[in-house]
């Protein structure tokens, strides 16, 4: 993994999500949406560990996955705005982006959808031979849907080449009872007991730590590639404050990259976020400390990313909407 590149991708995801919230505020799209802020390290490290032929099924919180896998932000933003030249011709919107050119199988907003479809991909990849693997990305809430247990049973029974990636963002979540966005409600204290029950090897990793995620992801992917059966990665992340309410906000403000070296303005309600939980700032500090990057390079990198997202934003806004009657184009092959 090229650290600078990884940081750039993480920051790209961050700026992308900041742009998404802006566009929603400007009524450029009206539907419910979900931010990947706070989870960037997971997407970037995981995709780093995957090969070009691997298949991925993901869920409603998919923006970061699609971008980390290499999709162009301008096509992703165009998609969210429902434009003709979006990743899915404007038909999927924010919750269903499925970039099949990059191995995305399907993106389901039905909790339990991605874990079950990914299991099927693993079944096909095993049957077809070769060494491609399947990845199922889902949240902790998916472990409340019965179909997820059923799917784990299949993966274990039939030794399927799949890596399950559960992004647990419940820490600090309000949940429905708290009037916020729903979060995990489970009697299972340690969610890793669930895959363990089915005999699926599992590890918990700190989702704020790029290197840690890459390390476990690489081993998980290798095991599946070697056809040694499924692996379950439980990624623990602190929930982004802006993802606590029913509708996302940029609660911590637009990310100020200078916080990576300048402590002085870090304070207030979100101090802990800036210091410990923001995966982007964390990784930036780490690279600065290691001398992998210096302040000027970091500023330059940030400028480049801002510019790219600004261009993507304009591209999306300038893009044409699909013809109304194209609504019937893809009901059947």
């Amino acid at each position, binding site marked *: 993994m090229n650290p600078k590149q990884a940081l750039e991708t993480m920051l790209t995801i961050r700026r992308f999500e900041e742009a998404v919230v802006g566009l929603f505020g400007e009524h450029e799209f009206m539907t419910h949406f979900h931010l990947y802020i706070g989870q960037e390290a997971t997407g970037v490290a995981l995709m780093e560990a995957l090969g070009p032929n691997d298949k991925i099924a993901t869920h409603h919180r998919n923006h970061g996955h699609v971008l980390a896998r290499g999709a162009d932000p301008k096509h992703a933003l165009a998609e969210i705005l429902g434009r003709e030249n979006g990743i899915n011709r*404007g038909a999927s*919107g924010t919750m269903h982006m499925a970039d099949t050119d990059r191995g995305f199988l399907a993106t389901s907003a039905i909790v339990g959808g991605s874990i079950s479809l990914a299991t099927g991909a693993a079944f096909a990849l095993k049957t077809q031979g070769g060494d491609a693997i399947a990845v199922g990305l889902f949240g902790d809430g998916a472990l409340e849907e019965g*179909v997820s247990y059923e799917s784990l049973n299949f993966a274990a029974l039939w030794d399927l080449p799949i890596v399950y990636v559960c992004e647990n963002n419940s820490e600090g979540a309000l949940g429905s009872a708290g009037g916020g966005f729903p979060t995990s409600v*489970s009697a299972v204290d340690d969610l890793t007991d669930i895959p363990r029950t089915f005999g699926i090897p599992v590890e918990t990793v700190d989702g704020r730590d790029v290197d840690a995620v890459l390390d476990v992801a690489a081993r998980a992917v290798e095991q599946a590639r070697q056809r040694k059966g499924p692996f379950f990665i439980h990624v623990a992340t602190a929930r982004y404050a802006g993802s606590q309410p029913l509708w996302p906000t940029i609660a911590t403000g637009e990310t100020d990259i200078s916080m990576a070296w300048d402590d002085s303005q870090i304070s207030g309600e979100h101090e802990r976020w800036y210091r410990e939980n923001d995966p982007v700032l964390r990784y930036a500090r780490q690279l600065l400390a290691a001398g992998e990057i210096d302040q000027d390079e970091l500023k330059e990198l940030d400028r480049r990313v801002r510019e790219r997202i600004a261009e993507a934003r304009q591209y999306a806004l300038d893009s044409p909407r699909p013809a109304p009657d194209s609504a*019937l184009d893809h009901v059947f092959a």
Partner: protein
Amino acid sequence: MATKNYADAMLDVLTTFMEEDPHFAVMGNEVLGIGPEAGQFEPFQQKYGDRIHFPPCSEAAFSALAAGAAMCGQRIFTHLGLAPFSYPAFSTIASEIATARQGSGGRVSAPVTLHMSHGLLHGGASQHSESPMGIYWNLPGIEIVVPWGPADLKGLLRTAIKSDNPTLVITHAFGYGTEGEVPDEDYEIPFGEAAVKREGGDVTIVACSMMVAMSLEAADRLAGEGIEAEVIDLRTLVPLDEQTILESVSKTGHLVVADEGRLRCGVASEIAATVSERAFDALKAPPARVTRMDAPVPGNQTQEAYLSPSVEKIVAAAKRATRHAPAPA
């Protein structure tokens, strides 16, 4: 009388049951949706928190839980969320709840009230935009309520919770904020009584849920062109008030059915078939169905609008119907 929205009306009813029945419970997440009205839930939650249950994302089990509890005499208002989230519970609803009474010779009953939100969501895409009335209407054993307007909602919801039968209450996801004059006191609106929301002699427009509002708007436009439409709000699909529909059609001779669900095997098909069967001689023109087109809804407002029933489409259908020249005998 006071001006209230759906959310107010629902809370009126739920509050009364909380007060009337010490065991009455409410189960579900985002019971008042995720729009601005969601906030109205908080004072209710404050007051009755111990009997308000926020289940995990396990629709199959929590609908079965509500049904099992109802079998033991407990009334639970159960909110499944958006209609597509009721699909993981489909086996529970179709094979357990709908069949419990008949399959036991009348000895078991599961008088649970299941609430879900339906409708097109301005780009919400297929997995959030179902209007599943046709699917559930094919499952006898469940009463189905499809109200429009907070006053009807209040009276029908009370009847639903009191009913000794399982009841599905399907309201529009965009309806929570809809306002209207609502009586303060408690009242029940009997099931199986459609409401003539507008009288007219030229064409009968049958609708439910939000399509009632569109049909009334269409009727106004039609009036401008000299066509008087009678608008019938079904209010409940099960039981169905066939009489009101048939009487209206025998008066007008023309039928338009407007439904937000899909065409094939949907509400519009059922009403059109029933009228054709039962009031054939009264019909002067083909019955017309104005529905969501038969395609999964893309997450795109432009495409969604194309697929959606609309005031324009209702107006056009009514005109076509009233201008139909019967074939020479």
